[in-house]
């Protein structure tokens, strides 16, 4: 329970503090909404937290055709960006799905990705938007497609001391994110379905959360959707394919059979939301 807190002023200092610590000895602290609970539950026991609160990453920038989301920007600030609901409706819906307003005043996208939860509401839409992740670490910066960062629940391919600095998505893309849960607020999604439509082929990107240890794209479903405006038959085939692919988990939140039904229903609705103006 007892830990000390360091508050570095620069990314380089934060990286050094993390890289120099013994394994498991130090953890980065962003909003703390996952980490402090993990500490309370004894899942991790760092002797030192390295606060990211003073790093210059609470930013939101549009550059070229990209939206660059600073890793430590509170999710609420992203949600309140006036252009987000229109330009990236799927991302807007996904951000609003996370916890509650008070939670989103502190919770960040960097923390959500680093925590890499099977039922994250942000990972499916970020996968569908083909997000790239900018990292800084002991051997300098690099940029990765999101799938290359995700390894398993609470596991990423970051090297010790490496931090997520920013997330890059297209500034605009027709998209949707639909979820199902027992309670609308502050509950974990049983299933999350994200779709995004590109301007050129391949047109569709489809990703699922809550069904596997790591949220992932559904390439077999994307292949069925080969037109920007799929008809009823293509939508139905896509929904059936999505419900049929690789085994889904059964846990206390939902059975595999229920998850399959949810995935098919939510995918149908999500595709219609994006295609029907």
């Amino acid at each position, binding site marked *: 329970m007892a830990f000390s*807190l360091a508050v570095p002023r620069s990314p380089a200092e934060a990286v050094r503090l993390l890289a120099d610590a013994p394994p498991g000895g130090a953890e980065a602290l962003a909003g*703390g909404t996952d980490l402090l609970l993990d500490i309370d539950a004894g899942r991790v026991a760092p002797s030192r937290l390295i606060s990211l609160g003073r790093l210059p990453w609470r930013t939101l920038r549009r550059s070229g055709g990209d939206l660059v989301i600073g890793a430590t920007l509170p999710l609420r600030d992203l949600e309140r960006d006036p252009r987000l609901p229109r330009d990236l409706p799927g991302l807007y819906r996904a951000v609003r799905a996370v916890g509650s307003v008070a939670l989103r005043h502190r919770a960040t996208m960097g923390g959500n990705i680093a925590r890499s939860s099977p039922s994250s509401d942000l990972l499916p839409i970020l996968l569908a938007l083909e997000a790239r992740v900018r990292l800084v670490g002991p051997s300098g910066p690099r940029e990765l497609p999101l799938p290359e960062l995700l390894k398993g629940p609470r596991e990423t391919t970051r090297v010790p001391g490496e931090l997520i600095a920013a997330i890059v998505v297209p500034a605009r893309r027709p998209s949707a994110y639909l979820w199902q849960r027992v309670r609308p607020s502050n509950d974990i999604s049983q299933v999350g379905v994200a779709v995004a439509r590109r301007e050129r082929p391949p047109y569709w990107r489809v990703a699922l959360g809550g069904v596997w240890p790591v949220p992932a794209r559904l390439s077999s479903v994307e292949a069925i959707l080969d037109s920007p405006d799929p008809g009823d038959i293509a939508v139905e085939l896509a929904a059936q394919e999505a419900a049929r692919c690789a085994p889904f988990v059964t846990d206390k939140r939902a059975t595999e059979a229920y998850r399959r039904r949810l995935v098919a229903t939510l995918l149908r609705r999500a595709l219609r939301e994006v295609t029907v103006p």
Partner: protein
Amino acid sequence: MTGGEGTGNAALALTVNGRRRRIRAPDAERLLDTLRWRLGLKGTKEGCRSGGCGACTVLVDGRSTLSCLTLTHEVAGATVTTVEGIGRDPVGRRVQAAFARENAVQCGYCTPGFVVALTGLLRERGPKLPPERLLEDLGGNLCRCTGYAAIRRATEAVCREVG
């Protein structure tokens, strides 16, 4: 604490309900415990202590915040408003009055969280918001007596008044 190295029990300053407070607190201390046990402000309630119920909601620089999941040192220098100070804010005053008038209180344990969260929402989003959206955005606050109907009436009433 400041700088790169943690001393474990550093001094910090907070402005709480308009009063500047200088305190010492362990690095791991939560804002909830600082408010209740160090500053004696017991209006802020501990519910689930895991971010799920909203009973511990306070405003930090005007933004509703779960004090159970916030390290005190992470908000060093900030302005904190708890339910004890919410009536100094004209919007907060109206929220309190509406809750009292509509009897939006049963056991009262969740009330400080609701009052603070609603005040934060009204201040942040302005009165232009439809009441349905306000109610949706209050979803992080639970009432275990399920006195939601009265809370909803109070929320709709304030929304009309402030609008």
